[in-house]
């Protein structure tokens, strides 16, 4: 089992550790509901150093990225980041990623921990024969701390003294000393930053952030927050079997940008299903893979679900027949044999200031 450079810090803080994608990670510290509340009202801290980071450089880096990913990398410039997808030749999603443009023909790609080995093999296979592209796996030396919540930007600005952080727009980033990157991104639906640093520097940075009032939060809170924010999670909303157009991430596929891996297959893939949000009418918790019906007919399944402490309601994302993807449509979720009423609602369930 792999450990991040903050492992000892988590243990000392009394975290409950669980296995996640081959890593020993904190699932909670004081309790998931309290940690969700901290992010929604002040500042939460997440160790996401288990995520993979790959540097792509060389004179062919831009062309390589543009061909391997679905979003339009031509919209990137130094200091900007972009959500994108890696597709296979069949149009299925290999991973969802964020691409950071560090300089002309120099990028950093952030990969899901659970997909990292597979992604790295895929990237290496694709780079064969391209002498002008250099890939480097920098995951081990790179730590990533997410600082999220309505007071996160103020906290980081005061703590680091880094100028003009509050002026950065969403998906813009600023580089500091010692390899630090302050990125106005996150996976919670609240404002905040994700801070890249050298792994060895992470414990002291984490200590400063907690001393300044940041509340450590675990994977349990992270999953609730990303669901409330309507963000997909690979292996749930996204996988190699489903088209991005049936997974709620069609906006990140730019069919007119030029050719890219998976594009030809996407032209022929059906768009019969849609990813929607569901909210339960009564107190009930829809969890993943629960059947959904309308008028007695099976119309799809939930892909993720939870109790939302913020909305005080059971919520889920679900892939359903497209004709039912209309806001307000009454549907029924089969919760372990009980038919529980719910409605199709807009995604995200929650968004604050971003």
């Amino acid at each position, binding site marked *: 089992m792999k450990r991040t450079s903050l492992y000892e810090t988590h243990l000392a803080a009394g975290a409950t550790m669980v296995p996640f994608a081959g890593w020993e990670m904190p*699932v909670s510290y004081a309790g*998931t509901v309290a940690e969700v509340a901290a992010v929604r009202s002040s500042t939460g801290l997440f160790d996401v150093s288990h995520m993979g980071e790959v540097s792509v450089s060389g004179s062919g880096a831009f062309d390589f990225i543009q061909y391997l990913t679905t979003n339009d990398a031509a919209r990137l410039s130094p200091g900007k980041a972009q959500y994108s997808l890696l597709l296979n030749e069949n149009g299925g999603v290999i991973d969802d990623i964020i691409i950071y443009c560090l300089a002309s023909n120099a990028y950093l790609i952030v990969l899901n921990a659970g997909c990292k080995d597979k992604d790295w093999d895929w990237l290496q296979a694709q780079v064969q024969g391209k002498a002008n592209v250099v890939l480097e796996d920098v995951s081990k030396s790179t730590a990533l701390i997410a600082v999220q919540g309505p007071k996160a930007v103020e906290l980081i600005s005061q703590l680091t003294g880094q100028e003009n952080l509050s002026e950065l727009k969403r998906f813009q980033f600023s580089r500091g000393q010692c390899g630090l990157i302050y990125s106005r991104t996150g996976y919670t639906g609240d404002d905040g930053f994700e801070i890249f640093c050298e792994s060895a520097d992470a414990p002291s940075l984490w200590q400063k952030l907690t001393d300044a009032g940041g509340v450590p939060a675990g994977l349990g809170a992270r999953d609730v927050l990303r669901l409330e924010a309507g963000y997909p999670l690979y292996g749930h909303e996204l996988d190699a079997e489903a088209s991005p157009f049936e997974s709620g991430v069609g906006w990140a596929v730019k069919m007119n940008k030029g050719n890219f891996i998976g594009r030809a297959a996407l032209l022929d893939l059906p768009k019969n299903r849609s990813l929607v949000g569901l909210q339960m009418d009564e107190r009930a*918790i829809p969890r993943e893979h629960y059947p959904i019906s309308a008028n007695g007919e099976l119309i799809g399944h939930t892909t993720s679900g939870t109790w939302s402490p913020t909305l005080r309601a059971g919520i889920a994302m679900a892939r359903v027949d497209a004709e039912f993807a209309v806001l307000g449509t009454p549907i029924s979720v089969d919760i372990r044999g009980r038919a529980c009423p719910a409605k199709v609602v807009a995604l995200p369930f929650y968004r604050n200031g971003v």
Partner: protein
Amino acid sequence: MPTPIDLNFSSTHEWCRIDANIATVGISDHAQGELGDVALTLLPEVGRMLQRGDKLGEIESIKAVSDLYAPVSGEVVAVNEALDDAPELVNDDPYGKGWMVKIKMTQPADAETLLDSAAYEATF
């Protein structure tokens, strides 16, 4: 949290406080800690007859669903309706306001199958 000495426990982590022939039932502090934040309890109707070991209901935390089993046989004579709006009482006060049901016992000898506080604490 110290385990109250006036309780008996099942090996499936329900506690009972037995007063004459009425058993008040909840889940242990250990169990609520393992479950994490309780978001929902599904409890039986008053009047339901249960055999010891029958599924009594479900407790759902944010991370998991857990079945609740009847630690004694009898009739459900009360259900803690406060949990409908405040299921977190199971976390905050597992041996008090977080109680779940009261069972009028039909087999008083059931109590002898349960663990006392010290034995439960030593096991879990």
